[in-house]
């Protein structure tokens, strides 16, 4: 059916040349291959976010007097509106989760080393962007939880010495969290962040495409010792087909979660009501939240909050530059980086769980 159309296009733009790199591309096949899927699933969930986000934009109205009501309208009056919003919220959470899984798998499989430093750097920036999406999108329904989460979150940003306060005022669009904050967050969420994310995803994917898939050093060593054990599969169609199956499963999980556990709307935000007891940030901020909670208010002569914020920023910066501390020779992989990775994973999970159960 499509053959004449493809031939027509091929005559004019030489499709063959365009898809040639995909035809030559291969994906290494070994016992750890399934970790390769998580980046793709994260990408799939991002696409879902873009599509459902556009759908929500058809009815959503930013503004302190309208936002909550418009989301309520979406959930109660618009047909399947509850489902679209629920998918957007669930997909956001799943996307952050798969992004974390993807990052740690890259870390433990040592895929970040030379020549893939830039892939790691763009990936870490993307993770920050994704958390920015989460933080800004959380405010948009203008409910009580979101209001206080934004208040606390921007207050934390304000703790950074010198640039903190101007940054907080920039984020809030004023001294306090008001409708002006909502307008800004809406702009960040639907214009600024998507623009940045698309550019970075393009670079990230281009690098993956250009450099091919990394083989974990252990597997590589086995293959060098025994060249006949080396296994590969074609990217197109073999790997792509498996990837599509993974996406299909992700879609199924997402749809089931969204339909069975629809996302709550909560109570409309009121700036003159006390924060409810047991209020907590979204799970992906919990490990930082708990860390800040545990630092005493004064450490030596430095404010605890300032210390916490600076410590977290420094850790983030080191995390971003991690590949540059690693030797590029497989045989000399630095043990301390593996140790640090394990520590980071245990710390993030441990603090998140602790933050979840702590009062």
């Amino acid at each position, binding site marked *: 059916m499509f053959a004449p159309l493809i031939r027509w296009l091929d005559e004019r733009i030489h499709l063959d040349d365009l898809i040639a790199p995909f035809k030559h591309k291969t994906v290494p096949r070994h016992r750890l291959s399934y970790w390769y899927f998580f980046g793709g699933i994260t990408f799939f969930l991002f696409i879902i976010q873009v599509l459902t986000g556009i759908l929500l934009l*058809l009815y959503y109205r930013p503004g302190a007097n309208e936002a909550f009501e418009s989301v309520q309208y979406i959930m109660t009056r618009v047909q*399947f509106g509850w*489902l679209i919003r629920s998918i957007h919220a669930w997909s956001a959470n799943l996307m952050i989760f798969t992004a974390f899984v993807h990052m740690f798998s890259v870390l433990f499989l040592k895929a970040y080393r030379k020549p893939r430093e830039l892939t790691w750097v763009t990936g870490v920036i993307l993770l920050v962007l994704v958390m920015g999406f989460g933080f800004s999108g959380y405010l948009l329904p203008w409910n009580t939880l979101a209001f206080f989460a934004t208040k606390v979150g921007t207050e934390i940003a304000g703790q950074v010495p010198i640039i903190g306060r101007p940054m907080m005022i920039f984020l809030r669009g004023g001294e306090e969290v008001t409708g002006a904050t909502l307008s800004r967050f809406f702009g960040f969420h639907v214009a600024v962040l998507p623009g940045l994310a698309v550019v970075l995803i393009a670079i990230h994917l281009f690098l993956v495409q250009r450099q091919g898939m990394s083989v974990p050093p252990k597997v590589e060593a086995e293959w060098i010792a025994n060249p006949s054990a080396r296994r590969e599969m074609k990217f197109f169609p073999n790997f792509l087909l498996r990837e599509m199956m993974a996406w299909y499963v992700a879609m199924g999980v997402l749809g089931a979660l969204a339909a069975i556990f629809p996302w709550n709307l909560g109570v409309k935000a009121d700036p003159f009501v006390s924060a409810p007891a047991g209020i907590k940030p979204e799970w992906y901020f919990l490990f930082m939240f708990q860390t800040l909670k545990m630092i005493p208010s004064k450490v030596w002569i430095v404010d605890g909050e300032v210390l916490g914020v600076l410590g977290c920023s420094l850790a983030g910066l080191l995390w971003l530059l991690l590949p540059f501390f690693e030797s590029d020779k497989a045989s000399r992989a630095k043990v301390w980086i593996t140790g640090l990775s394990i520590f980071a994973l245990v710390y993030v999970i441990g603090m998140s769980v602790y933050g979840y159960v702590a009062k």
Partner: protein
Amino acid sequence: MTADLLSQPETTRRRVIEFFLGGGLLASFASFIYPVLRYLVPPAVVDLGGDEIVAAKLNELKPNSGKIFRFGSRPGLLILNSDGTYRALSATCTHLGCTVQYRPDLREIWCACHNGTYDLNGRNVSGPPPRPLTVFDVHQRGDEIVVSRKREA
């Protein structure tokens, strides 16, 4: 020859599997698209306008002038003629939906968008409008000018 004979049931089986797999995929895609299509249809807005509205107060309009009033979710046009009689019509141009106005200089109803004109009975007299404007009933109740939809005969 033997290979051909052997492959015969294989292809049939393959066709059956392809049918179920493809059909299943198509059905599931339909189930993804269906809610989206329903979502795109905006919920009907309830027209709270009713069949009757107070369009103006008694001494609000000068003779030979017109006024746009709200009739449900649509605009209406109330005209006070020089002889003191009222007239009310739909203000939505039958051409492309602009809101018309009363022209005291022409004593006609005029649409600025494409220069269509109607006479005071709402008949389309020149320009692109294809149909006359709907005429409403007007009556006076106390010091209010009340406009109502004409009863369907």
